[in-house]
């Protein structure tokens, strides 16, 4: 079993005729993902990816005609917020937004607007989800993972690749890897994903990769201490980073002394989580469990 995605996932690609959307759709198809439709307004009626995938003008019609139940978004930043809401409005339950650069206040509104609906938004600025060996909804290279029993959740993009690749090099497989996105405001947080892994029969160990800024890792640490039975290995990037460019006095007052790499590492350790010093140390720690 995997979390969030599986072989029942019927994926829609928003922005399928764009450069990135097209490229990664090919990658996803090759990996085995069941892409059922693409959406590019104004190009409805075309067929892409060697004539295999129909393109629709709207998510609404795409979902009606193909039964799509998940969507991945590759559209440019200034249209991506609209794309998220369009998918949500059309009843898509899992929305993965790869796009980076959506204005933060637009995301505040979107997150609030969908918060009362039964919708899971991953991202924005997320590398997506991969569940080896057959399903990926995102841009994580398929060949850097192998199936296994380690769940990975991360705020970073490429740092996530580094970790799953290091696992594979050490012959450790991944159950599902979820990049929740690196932006200040994302749809899904660590705790959501940790709780999924806790309930996932395929997952025996969880790797959580955080970075400086915000309080997500600290909150996740409390959650792990109180609700997780499975072992968690942590890594926090940013120890060598210069002190945050503080957001005026307001930012400093809000964040107080927290949000630094030290505070996060301490929070994880206090929750009984082992913390790696660098990505390639993670497989070593897992092997010692």
């Amino acid at each position: 079993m995997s979390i969030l995605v599986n072989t029942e996932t019927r994926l829609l690609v928003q922005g399928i005729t764009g450069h990135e959307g097209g490229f990664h759709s090919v990658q996803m198809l090759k990996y085995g993902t069941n892409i059922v439709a693409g959406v590019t307004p104004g190009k409805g009626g075309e067929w892409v990816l060697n004539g295999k995938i129909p393109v629709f003008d709207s998510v609404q019609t795409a979902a009606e005609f193909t039964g799509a139940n998940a969507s991945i978004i590759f559209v440019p930043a200034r249209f991506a917020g609209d794309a998220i809401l369009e998918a949500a409005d059309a009843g898509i339950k899992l929305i993965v937004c790869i796009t980076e650069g959506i204005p933060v206040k637009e995301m505040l509104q979107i997150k609030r607007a969908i918060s009362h609906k039964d919708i899971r938004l991953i991202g924005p600025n997320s590398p997506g989800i991969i569940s080896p060996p057959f399903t990926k909804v995102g841009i994580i290279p398929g060949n850097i993972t192998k199936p296994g029993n380690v769940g990975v959740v991360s705020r970073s993009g490429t740092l996530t690749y580094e970790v799953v690749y290091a696992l594979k090099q050490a012959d450790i497989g991944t159950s599902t890897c979820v990049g929740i996105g690196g932006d200040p405001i994302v749809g899904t947080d660590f705790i959501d994903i940790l709780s999924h892994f806790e309930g996932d029969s395929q997952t025996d160990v969880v790797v959580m990769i955080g970075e400086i800024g915000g309080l997500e890792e600290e909150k996740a640490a409390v959650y792990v201490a109180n609700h997780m039975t499975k072992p968690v290995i942590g890594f926090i990037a940013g120890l060598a980073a210069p002190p945050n460019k503080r957001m005026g006095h307001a930012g400093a007052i809000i964040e107080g002394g927290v949000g630094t790499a030290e505070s996060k590492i301490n929070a994880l350790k206090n929750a009984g989580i082992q913390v790696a010093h660098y990505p390639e140390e993670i497989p070593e720690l897992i092997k010692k469990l």
Partner: protein
Amino acid sequence: MRLHEYQSKEIFANHQIPVPRGRLASSPEDAKLIAEELNRPVVLKAQVLVGGRGKAGGIRLVKSPGEASDEASKILGSKIKEIPVRRLLVEEAVNIQQEIYIGMTIDRDSGSTLLIASGEGGVDVEEVARTSPEKIARVYVDPLLGLKDYQARNLAAEIELPRPLWRSFISITKGLYQSYQELDATLAEINPLVITADGRLIALDGKMIIDDNALFRHPDLVEKRDFSAEAPEEIEAQKFCLEYIKLSGDIGCLVNGAGLAMATMDIIQHNGGQPANFLDIGGGASAEKVAAALRIILQDPQVKTVLVNIFGGITRCDEVAIGIKKILDQIKTDIPFIIRLVGTNEKEGREILASANLETADTLQEAAGKAVQKSLEYAP
């Protein structure tokens, strides 16, 4: 993107926030003229985008137009924290009875904008927050509803503002929130908002930071951007949408993704080296962008080694390789490069680089170790 004090105040004034009368001066003559127009003691304030202006001598109170001219000629052309002062804001001096703080920013934790106010504003407000957190009033603004009157009023009551000033405070707070919304700011603050001796509220200093991701909606701000007040290598980086922060070490880093860039810096440090910079080329970077990034790194005279760490997802290793090759064709340098390419189109990337005589690495630990080693060995 940070706005200058004078820009923030212009925006405030357009949103019914009282600010001192005054104008921008680029010369001692201007400063004298403005002081004459205002016909009362004035304050000269250096317009540089760094904190601690006051302590660095960038703010002066003067009593006469002549004195304004003299002092202006001292400040203009001087440097504050490495930034040359090219413009002064010349404003009427205000008789201060109390300093208030009011600011707002994104609160990640609640997913909303958080408004903060304190009856003890001024430069020491962070100290107040640390030692007397009860003196900081907070209000969370629903992103879909916006700031409501009752919320601003509750702030006024909580910081024990005298009642006759509530109406003005509510209007200022709403004006600040509107400024923040319209400009797509991630921070807007007035510090201090002062109660004058004659019982009015006036915004004495203002700061705004605009969300870089929303700058496309504000072409006027981008146009008026004052690059002279910013570090040249950071300007260059922004031109190519690169996240670049100069640091004090000697190993230049080029990485895709902020998290991996930080992890790369961390592992350099873990191996006993020091990163010369943080540099994130973002996702899906073109060869041109990679070349620009390397040019910026190589312009730093402290750099003794360059570590390129790319883990391709949306970024393709072949594009990165083309960019590296390009810059090495353009710039002749003997600085050693350590290259690590993994992920999307990794094979194609390696092939492109095969011709160039570059050190490669398979693991991040190996790459970091080699980079630290090379930086110790390097002697130009």
